[in-house]
């Protein structure tokens, strides 16, 4: 009797598990196996162009990373790019979200147009910026800046990091705006009204009531955004190709260069492991925020 109950129980457990398994196994195989292989390769010296060069190298790839100027530059560029892009896009996104949440004409159309930069293919957006807006000879911006004496400057080459940051801020501000706007719209307008009645001015009401309410949404936007921005590749490839020199080479781009221009599989894998470590730190915070928002939503 007891045995059959246990059998029924385990049958039920498997009936529950079965629909999950295909997706679970698929994701497991395609993400975890390559990741383990990356760790494995990172202990080998292997140049793809040299057959038979596959040999155990211990921690050599990692010690090379420690002494390598390129990786330090790439880590620094990654951190700088991510912080700058997230910082600017959160601040501007917050501003636009507040505007779109207030009484303005044509809110719906504003929102629709505003999200376009996020939807445009990143490679296409980067090309448009580089060739039609920033090109020193034919671009629109140098032309507009000529009267102020700034014209005909090769912006992309002289300020490569500023350019990449600007294009990425252009792309990520709509993302931040959408998330923060959702937070603002979840606010009960009566609370703000009550604060007004109590004599709080608009700024006080914003700081004391609105901002604490949208804070989890800002955090979520910043953390999710940084997980994407850490991986920036498309716009660097199109705008600067990591240069001039290594001025805009971040970790994904360095990995691309080492793996597919230098064909050093072991070295590239070690860089991949470093990328995972950095991302895991950010992701841990992101997931915690995600779950806390789930709980806020569930309580409502």
């Amino acid at each position, binding site marked *: 009797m007891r045995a059959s109950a246990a059998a029924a129980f385990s049958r039920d457990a498997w*009936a*529950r*598990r079965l*629909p999950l398994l*295909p*997706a679970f196994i698929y*994701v497991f195989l395609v*993400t975890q196996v*390559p*990741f383990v*292989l*990356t760790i494995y390769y990172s202990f080998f010296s292997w140049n793809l162009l040299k057959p038979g060069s596959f040999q155990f190298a211990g921690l050599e790839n990692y010690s090379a990373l420690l002494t390598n100027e390129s990786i330090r530059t790439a880590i620094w560029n990654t951190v700088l790019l991510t912080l700058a892009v997230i910082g600017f896009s959160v601040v501007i996104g917050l501003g*636009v979200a507040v*505007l779109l949440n*207030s009484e*303005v004409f*044509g809110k719906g159309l*504003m*929102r629709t147009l*505003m*999200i*376009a*930069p996020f*939807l*445009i*293919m*990143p*490679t*296409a*957006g980067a*090309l*448009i910026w580089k*060739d*039609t*807006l920033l090109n020193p000879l*034919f671009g*629109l911006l140098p*032309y507009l800046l000529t009267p102020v004496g700034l014209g005909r400057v090769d912006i992309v080459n002289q300020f490569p990091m500023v350019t990449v940051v600007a294009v990425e801020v*252009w792309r990520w501000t709509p*993302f931040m705006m959408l*998330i923060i*706007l*959702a937070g603002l719209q979840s606010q009960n307008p009566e609370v703000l009204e009550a604060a007004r009645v109590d004599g709080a001015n608009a700024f006080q009401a914003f700081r004391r009531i609105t901002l604490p309410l949208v804070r989890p*949404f800002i955090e*979520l936007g910043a953390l*999710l955004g940084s997980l994407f921005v*850490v*991986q920036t*590749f498309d716009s660097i*490839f*199109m705008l600067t190709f990591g240069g001039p020199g290594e001025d805009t080479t971040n*970790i*994904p781009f360095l*990995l691309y260069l080492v*793996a597919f221009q230098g064909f050093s599989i072991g070295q590239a*894998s070690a860089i991949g492991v470093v990328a995972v470590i950095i*991302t895991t730190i950010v*992701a841990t915070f992101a*997931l915690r925020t995600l779950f806390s*928002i789930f709980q806020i939503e569930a309580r409502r």
Partner: protein
Amino acid sequence: MSEVAGRSKVLWSIVGWLVVFVFFFPVLWMWLEGFKTEPQAASTPPTILFVPTLAEFQEVLSGDFPPFFINSAIASIGSTLLVLVLGLPAAYALAIRPVKRSRDVLFFFISTRFLPFAASLVPLYLLARDLQLLDNILALVLIYTTINLPLGVWLLRSFLLEIPHDLFEAARVDGASFHHEILRIVVPLIAPGLAATSLICLIFSWNEFFYAVNLTSSVAATAPLFLVSFISGRGLFYAKLAAAATLASLPVLLAGWIAQRQLIRGLTMGAVK
């Protein structure tokens, strides 16, 4: 509305529209340049008034662009279908009749989405090489499925949680099978959710560049790669570039605008509605 409130509405509207104009301008400029002739697109001062021409669009479409576009369509639609087929049952097992430790499973799924692409590129490249899948669109279909599946599972789960539980109890009393529940109850009820999930998946896979540039070269190259050929080009090619960029961006722009209401939900894995 009082006069003061009316005046502040006008003021803030102007500020708002200025900001929106700045952000939308590059997109607008891309469209405009695409409808110009090459000399107009590269003129100083910039041509503002002109008779629009479809010449560059025609040239792009009659040239070598269509195969890239078709590859993008195969990779995006193929992977999106796979996400739905694999993701819906999984979401069911995490929402309707949850498995044990379903929270851990959810956590696992989403953590794979945050694993940097850089971490798996090298092994996937070597694997694709050994399986004769380099420059084969199937490789991108399979990889994009992996990228979007965690997102799909989370999103579909958030839609499934909104179905009243009684419906399933009733169906089970009637002896409905799993397939019956999925096809007769789940699919009709979350049809908008399925559409939203598909659009989000399409957006991510259509624009993907990192794997595409490293795993394909000519036969299976996708739309973003077509644009790469413009980097090295010199001389008068801005109108053609803009026309190509417009065409390459169009599907996602439309999908995003159609799914506007669901976009935020998709981008936050269903956490924000």
